[in-house]
């Protein structure tokens, strides 16, 4: 049992960086979930499936366009949009009729969508996993105190704050963002003011799902694109959203940080049980703050 | 039996109950009156443990009960009915009262005997005493509003309380139902030796049954006295009873 045998300052620093880049993906996915949960009050279990579809779409588009770098960038733009389109269809066709139902029902409904999406992916892409290589200049790694740090992770470290800023701007500085935040707290009031709440919901839902697709697109070059992706990410995203505070974007960031960092530190401290560390952290947080660390919109 | 002193409770700066005081002796029927928002229901919540006061004391049979858990307070001998009907919607009339009886008898962890056979007689007795005997098997959601309010009282009786707290027991009732409930309350005191604390807007009803009246306004105790004294109290007249016509 190699327990704590690798902890050097360099290794620590490297793992923190790895953890932070993992945080980017987790944050992007969780913030989308938090947005949908906070404004529409839908616990969207299918969020993970959209993430997976985003990854698969990225692979397909990049492969279709061919020639390495251009393909990836185009896929990065188009795949999340494809996911957004899909979610728009789902919202208009199905969800908008169910807003008045109990949360448990909504959860089960989105779970059934997970089942459908899962098989659709199997239908379209087959059961094999796919892998995608990052564009040339993002491949490989460079040295950090003698330990390798993948260049792609640096790219993620750069993207993360960008998305965070974009989200902050959207929710705090744009009119629609402010209305959505108001609708999260009191949808009846917003409706009484003459604003079409249904449209606000649709836009918020699509943006949230776009983020899921974006997360999937960004993660595509870093791991195998497989069938089980949706199951693992959705549990992580839900737990992050809960410990952060339902509907709170900054809570999602905080939760993603906790999750990503405990995961990478776990790899350093006790590799065999690395995946247990984030769950333990979640349990500890929920024991002391069962409603989450930051204020929720519920 | 019940002694409340300097009781205070505020919500985000709004003083729902402000330095209230009240005394209820055994066997009395005491009414709490006051305009809407005066803090009557909050006062009841504080007595039964649903809310914890910011300061002050509530002593029941010489024991301090402020901020205790509701189920513990019930076991000590206080039961209540609710202003807005608060029943077990899926259960029948019989089963609603039976829950209270089972809880009182401490039989709630009994896992294996069919509940249909336990505490049957006592439950039927309670239903008969309030006049719901013939409707025992109806799902309570199908009862008339008046019957539901009576069921509220029946459930409270299931706990065999020493002090019965009724929150607007005749609200929304027709004049006949009000008279019946009035008669029921008198019978409960006379036959079962209950002490009753209740609040109401129907002044005629209050003045006909109450031994003493406590008047609340903006969370404070404006007056606490016999009905006649309260009627003649100038402060009360000014604040609440107006020119003699009372809100109903």
């Amino acid at each position, binding site marked *: 049992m190699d327990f704590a045998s690798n902890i050097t300052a360099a290794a620590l620093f490297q793992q923190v960086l790895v953890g932070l880049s993992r945080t980017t993906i987790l944050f992007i996915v969780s913030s989308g979930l938090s947005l949908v949960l906070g404004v529409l009050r839908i616990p969207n279990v299918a969020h993970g499936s959209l993430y997976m579809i985003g990854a698969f779409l990225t692979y397909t588009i990049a492969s279709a366009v061919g020639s390495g770098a251009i393909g990836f960038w185009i896929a990065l733009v188009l795949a999340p949009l494809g996911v957004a389109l899909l979610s728009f269809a789902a919202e208009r066709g199905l969800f908008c009729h169910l807003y008045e139902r109990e949360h448990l029902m909504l959860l*089960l409904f989105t779970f*059934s969508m997970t089942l459908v999406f899962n098989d659709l992916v199997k239908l379209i892409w087959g059961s094999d996993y796919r892998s995608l290589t990052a564009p040339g200049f993002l491949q490989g790694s460079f040295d950090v105190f003698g330990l390798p740090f993948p260049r792609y992770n640096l790219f993620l470290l750069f993207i993360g704050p960008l998305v965070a800023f974009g989200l902050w701007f959207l929710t705090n500085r744009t009119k629609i963002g402010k209305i959505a935040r108001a609708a999260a707290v009191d949808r009846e009031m917003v409706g009484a003011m003459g604003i079409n709440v249904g449209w606000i919901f649709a836009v918020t839902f699509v943006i949230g799902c776009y983020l899921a697709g974006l997360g999937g697109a960004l993660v595509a070059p870093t791991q195998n694109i497989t069938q089980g992706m949706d199951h693992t990410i959705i549990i992580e995203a839900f737990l992050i959203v*809960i410990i952060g505070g339902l509907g709170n974007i900054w809570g999602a960031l905080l939760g993603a940080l906790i999750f990503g960092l405990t995961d990478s530190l776990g790899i350093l401290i006790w590799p065999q049980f690395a995946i247990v560390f984030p769950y333990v952290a979640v349990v500890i947080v929920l024991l002391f703050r069962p409603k989450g660390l930051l204020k929720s919109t519920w | 039996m019940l002694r409340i002193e300097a009781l205070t409770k505020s919500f985000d700066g709004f003083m729902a109950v402000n330095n209230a005081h009240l005394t209820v002796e055994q066997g009395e029927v005491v009414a709490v009156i006051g305009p809407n928002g005066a803090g009557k229901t909050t006062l009841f919540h504080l007595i039964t443990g649903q809310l914890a006061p910011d300061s002050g004391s509530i002593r029941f049979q010489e024991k301090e009960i402020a901020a205790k858990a509701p*189920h513990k307070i019930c076991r000590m001998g206080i039961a209540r009915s609710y202003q807005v009907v608060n029943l*077990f919607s899926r259960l029948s009339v019989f089963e609603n009262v039976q829950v209270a009886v089972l*809880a009182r008898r401490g039989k709630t962890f009994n896992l294996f005997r069919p509940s249909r056979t336990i505490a049957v007689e006592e439950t039927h007795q309670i239903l008969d005493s309030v006049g719901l005997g013939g409707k025992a098997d109806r799902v309570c959601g199908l009862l008339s509003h008046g019957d539901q309010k009576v069921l509220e009282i029946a459930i409270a009786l299931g706990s065999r309380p020493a002090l019965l707290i009724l929150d607007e027991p005749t609200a929304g009732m027709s004049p006949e139902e009000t008279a019946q409930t009035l008669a029921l309350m008198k019978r409960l005191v006379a036959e079962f030796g209950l002490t009753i604390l209740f609040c109401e807007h129907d002044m005629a009803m209050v003045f006909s049954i109450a031994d003493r009246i406590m008047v609340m306004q903006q969370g404070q105790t404006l007056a606490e006295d016999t009905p006649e004294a309260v009627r003649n109290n100038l402060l009360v007249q000014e604040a609440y009873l107006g020119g003699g016509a009372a809100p109903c």
Partner: protein
Amino acid sequence: MIRALFSAKTLLVAALLLAALILAPQVVSRFYIYLMALIFATGLLATSLNMVLGFGGMYQFHHAVFYGFGAYALTLLLTKAGMTPVFAYLLAPCCSAALGLLLGLITVRLTKLYFGMLQISLGSLVWALAYRWYSFTGGDDGIHGIPLPDAVYSSTGAYYFSLAVCLVSLLIMYLIVNSPFGRIFQGIRDNPERCRAVGVDVHRHQLAGQAIAGFFAGVAGTLFVTVEGSVFPELMFWTLSLELIIMCLLGGWFVFLGPMLGAAIIVVLRTFVGIYTEYWTLVLGVVLMLLIFFLPEGVLGFALKKAGPAGADPAKE
């Protein structure tokens, strides 16, 4: 006591059904016997979930943990501790009940969604431990070829064992639902505030409910091990927990035998649709979506509403 609970007609139907089930291995192929045994185990599991879900109103989002825990407990007691099977079969559900109590102590303070999420996080923790502890639990491979006692080793033996255990467990759970505890528990579902007002310690009762549900989930876990001869971490995965909730929804969660029916439908669907297409999850997903749109009371609930008056006792079969 039996007479007090069931009408003569119900007893007759039940007796006929039981006779059919007992005779089944003589007339039906081994595959169907295996399938039915699986249905017994899954149905028992779904019914144990419904004890706290439908009858208790608790958002039990990760019930599968207790199922897998019971299965692992039996397996480890038989393989690592070399315990005599009788004791192992009795002890394993107790382990699940203990886990139910432990998790309950932490989660019962919360309500609804928060209760469910904390349960999922705790359950995922248990799953992660089982998933990675290769030396003890076999990790993601699980444990196979478990040495079961001869009596239950064959598929017929496993079938009769599952039938008997399932029957006895259902009977006990039915008694509990109709007992004073069950009545209070349903009261807590409908109106916890009122329960407190009449002197019921709500948290303590909910804790007891968690232990009971955990116990019977553990029993179902032992049945699974008996039928399959293996155990793996997927038994504790959250997708199974949600599937169980779906089974309860499908069959009707205010009716005692609803979850059993739901489990049977799902297992049968999975097996037979799976023969024709590998996209059976797609079928399930669509069926479920239709169900949520049109039949929120579940199949059995819907049928009962059509058949009987509105005041029907929901705990009767």
